[in-house]
């Protein structure tokens, strides 16, 4: 069992190797496009489904809690919006993507490691870290914010549908959604998801890149990638919230 410090050191060494200028721009762009498709487009479905249902459930629960007539009904739209933007969308999404994208990255790179494909790259004189990892980091950091905007939008639609079942009028829900809108919250959410994207792609790449052994170890790496990137995401969620909102 490698000590935590060694692992952290190794992680930064890997990042150092990753962030070097791509040898061939055209090759980088081709890889980047592939990753956008694998990481970004293939996550659209799951993001849509999850966001819709979370939005719906949040608004129904809020409606349930605000049943007393002293609360104006538009509060439900307002509270739904706030909780989606501030917490549910960025954090929930990051955790789900840590599972989906993180395990995908770790197992892909890990299996390349154990089948000597990474060695083959290195001995050809290719910087394997930069070639394999950089496009993944760029793709996640670029695409996760797009996913989050989509997620918030779908979440609000879900919230509206939820409201219908709870007997709140569309008009008061809409009023609530626009009520005291603070644009900084969206910025905050985008900052969070960008950081999370970086954590998920780099940490998962780390576990994949330093896999050794066989197919079994690839599975292990991919589990570790999900567990560790989720934990680190949660820690940074706390730190960023403290830093940006407190």
């Amino acid at each position, binding site marked *: 069992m490698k000590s935590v410090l060694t692992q952290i050191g190794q992680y930064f060494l890997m990042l150092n190797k990753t962030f070097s200028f791509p040898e061939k721009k055209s*090759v980088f762009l081709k890889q980047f496009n592939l990753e956008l498709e694998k990481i970004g487009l293939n996550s659209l479905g799951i993001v849509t489904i999850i966001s819709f249902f979370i939005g719906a459930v949040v608004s129904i629960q809020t409606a349930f809690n605000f049943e007393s007539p002293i609360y104006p009904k538009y509060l439900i739209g307002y509270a739904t919006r706030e909780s989606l933007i501030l917490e549910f969308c960025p954090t929930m999404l990051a955790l789900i993507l840590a599972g989906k994208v993180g395990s995908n990255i770790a197992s892909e790179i890990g299996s390349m490691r154990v089948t*000597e*494909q990474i*060695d*083959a790259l290195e*001995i*050809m*004189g290719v910087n394997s870290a930069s070639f394999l990892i950089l496009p993944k980091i760029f793709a996640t950091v670029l695409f996760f914010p797009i996913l989050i905007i989509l997620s918030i939008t779908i979440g609000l639609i879900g919230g509206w549908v939820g409201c219908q079942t709870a007997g709140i009028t569309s008009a008061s829900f809409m009023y609530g959604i626009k009520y005291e809108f603070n644009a900084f919250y969206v910025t905050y959410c985008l900052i969070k998801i960008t950081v999370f994207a970086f954590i998920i792609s780099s940490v998962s790449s780390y576990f994949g890149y330093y896999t050794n052994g066989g197919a079994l170890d690839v599975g292990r790496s991919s589990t570790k990638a999900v567990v560790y990137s989720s934990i680190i995401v949660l820690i940074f969620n706390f730190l960023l919230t403290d830093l940006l909102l407190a």
Partner: protein
Amino acid sequence: MIEIKNIHKSFGDNHVLNNISFKFEKGKTNLIIGESGSGKTTLLRILIGLHKIDQGEVLYDGRDFNQLNSKEKRKLRQEIGVLFQRGALYDFMNVEENIMFPLTMFTNQSYEEKIERVNNCLERVNLQNNNNLKISELSGGMIKRVSIARAIAMKPKYLLCDEPNSGLDPRTAIIIDNLIKEISIEDDITTIVNTHDMNSVMEIGDSIAYINNGQISWTGNKDELLQSNNKQLNNFVFASKLFKRLKNT
């Protein structure tokens, strides 16, 4: 020519290679033979810098690999073709893209030039018109052949092969062996082949180094091998009943 001088390598307490020196000559198939675990793969990985050595020198026509700076190292690596034990083909690319990859990475050739080279290499290994196959669609023998094609795409001066015919039937194995030998002679390449397959030794053993207990305990060619009195070597080479009988006739 690749020359190694006084190579020492250990993994922890496990002294795998102990003062190994040898000259691998140009235009020949140089074989490294030895039992499983004797350090053949380790030696090959040392040659291409995938393992650090504790002591010694690796000279590529006089250039000491471990003294080169990273830019020179990268340049030298482009002169080396490597055939990994299990192929190590990039599974996210098809056959054509695999062979074209080093050309794309390291040359400024046009697509037409590259595709011509790819087709040449594929023809060389008898796999013409299989450009668009996926790696998962290849048989074991085809994987080896595509790997050879990829390894020679950059017209290397040095070709290193780790057990090129493990896992192949005897006929295919011999075809692969002869292919490697043919390419080495025609293109005047310094070729090193790791093997514990006696068929290949007899087929292509121009120059053989036998590793035992971390040292080179015998060197010679395939004809000398049959006459050798080295006891360990004989035990290793003539391990099977068939070979024992041949030795006695």
